[in-house]
């Protein structure tokens, strides 16, 4: 890595590390949600940004992860941290299985199939034969974990650090995956899949695997989200969640890892800002923000930053 991004990263990490001690619990809670969403968006970005498979239903994987955690914690008393790998594994499998028939679908058709998944999952969660597990329409309430080893933190702060640790781990995995051969193959499939196959890339395998891994990331985010909110119900995971995830990666920047963070900041805070600006039609204000961002930064915030940085580099005399 070049030197300046490394410095920026270290500074950001340091800031993130001390933030909970200077902010109110409410803000710490909000930042925890931002981190949860950034993991979810990273998952979606892998599939849509890096691999070109559009998904309008990623909220479904978020929901599956959340319910895994809730069911394990509530019915079986599994400790919260142990539910994350299970949620991840379940979503990896479901995502992969969904990705297999989806291989035949491109563009619009895949969009419809994923849209269908996102729309029908709440109905499945309410299905009365599954009620015993899912709590049906009433949902499941879970408790927030206490800090371990008697650390002098309160619950919100502990959850923040726990989420931060998971986020760093997931981002590191993604970064490693995407800059290596796998990432190259994914992008090749996105840009020119016929040429990629001609070069020996097993398109079918990579596409399904990407679906699985992407679902895994978003599922783990869902699990963390469930712990933070302490409640899961079918109403929490409607189609609008999937749509807002898509909005998040586009605003943040497609095919960009930091883009996931920018996108998460946008989807967490801009609706609140819109609500403060106008009580009468807050979503209209949100829509205007969306249009404004897309006009000003068609490649997302990450894209705009990249372009601005490149322009500045060009101004510097070459060594």
């Amino acid at each position, binding site marked *: 890595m070049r030197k300046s991004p490394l410095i920026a990263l270290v500074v950001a990490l340091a800031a993130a590390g001390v933030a909970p001690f200077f902010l109110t619990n409410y803000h710490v809670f909000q930042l925890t949600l931002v981190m949860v969403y950034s993991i979810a968006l990273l998952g979606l970005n892998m599939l849509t940004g890096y691999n070109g498979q559009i998904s309008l239903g990623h909220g479904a994987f978020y929901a599956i992860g959340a319910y895994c955690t809730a069911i394990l914690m509530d019915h079986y008393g599994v400790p919260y941290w142990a539910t994350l790998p299970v949620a991840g594994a379940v979503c990896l499998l479901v995502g992969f299985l969904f990705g297999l*028939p989806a291989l035949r*679908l491109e563009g619009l058709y895949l969009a419809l199939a994923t849209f269908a998944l996102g729309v*029908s999952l709440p*109905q*499945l969660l309410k*299905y009365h034969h599954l009620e015993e597990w899912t709590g049906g329409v009433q949902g499941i309430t879970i408790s927030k974990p206490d800090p371990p080893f008697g650390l002098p933190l309160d619950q919100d702060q502990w959850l923040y650090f726990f989420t931060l640790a998971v986020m760093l781990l997931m981002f590191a995995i993604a970064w490693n995956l995407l800059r290596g051969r796998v990432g190259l193959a994914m992008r090749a499939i996105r840009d020119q899949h016929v040429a990629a196959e001609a070069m020996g890339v097993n398109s079918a395998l990579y596409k399904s695997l990407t679906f699985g891994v992407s679902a895994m990331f978003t599922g783990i985010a869902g699990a963390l989200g469930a712990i933070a909110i302490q409640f899961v119900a079918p109403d929490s995971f409607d189609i609008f969640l999937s*749509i807002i995830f898509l909005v998040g990666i586009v605003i943040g920047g497609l095919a960009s890892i930091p883009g996931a963070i920018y996108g998460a900041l946008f989807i967490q805070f801009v609706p609140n800002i819109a609500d403060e600006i106008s009580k009468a*039609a807050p979503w209209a204000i949100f*829509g205007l923000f969306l249009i404004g961002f897309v006009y000003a930064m068609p*490649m997302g915030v990450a894209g705009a930053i990249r372009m601005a940085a490149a322009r500045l580099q060009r101004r510097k005399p070459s060594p």
Partner: protein
Amino acid sequence: MDAFLHQVLAGLATGGIYASLALALVMIYQATHHVNFAQGAMGMCCTYVAWSLINAGMPYWAAFVLTVLIAFVFGVLIERLVIRPVENSPILAVVVVFIALLVIITSITGWIYSYTIKTFPSPFPDQIGLGRYMSPHQVGAIGVTLVVLLLLYLFFRFTPLGLAMRAAAQNPESSRLVGIRVGWMLALGWGLAAAIGSVAGIMIAPSVYLDPNMMAGVLLYAFAAALVGGIDNPAGAVFGGFLVGVLENVLGAYVIGNELKLAVALVLIVGVLVVRPSGFFGKVHVTRV
């Protein structure tokens, strides 16, 4: 048997609703190669305009015609002012603009008109009903959808303007070389789609009652219907709409129960697409490498 017939006819009635919005989706796709997620909201908003006109005393058909014209202008304006700036952006950025339009239009309409349901009159006489299976309005609405379909077909097949629009969507560069004003073709396409959407809204409102979220549930089914019938085939879209409507009803009543019919209907549709990726009547696109 009687119950089954009732379900099928009720399915055709609901299917008619999906078909009319699906037509608008196909229209916008044929003109721009984009699927406009705000199509339903635009149609809903124009229906409110019609409602205001009728409430102010205008006779039904006058309000109908005026609304369609207003919708056309509305569509053209949206294309010129909102969509133009992002024409060359990545496709997902355009999708986000559609989503933004959807929330803006729904939110502002809700603010102006409130969210309480409103009745919308039906112009169809009582005699044309199908007894207890289908109300006069439902029969009339299907008729209107078929008329719109016919007009669309004639427009695209037999008029030079229709040909120019299809050309502009399929091959903008070559069209420009031949002298077609591609930008205006896109605007025209948006205008027509908005007009069709407003007709859809006016036909749907009497059955489901008018409220800002009226089209939200319909949009998914219309989208599915358009794809199942072939996204570039208006007749296919209408067929798809009826198919989806009947399928949903029959599944819910006889196969899987109401609690899962949404999921199962969608699974079946996706299944069809996996087997026939271009839908029933769509053109299969062969790309040369």
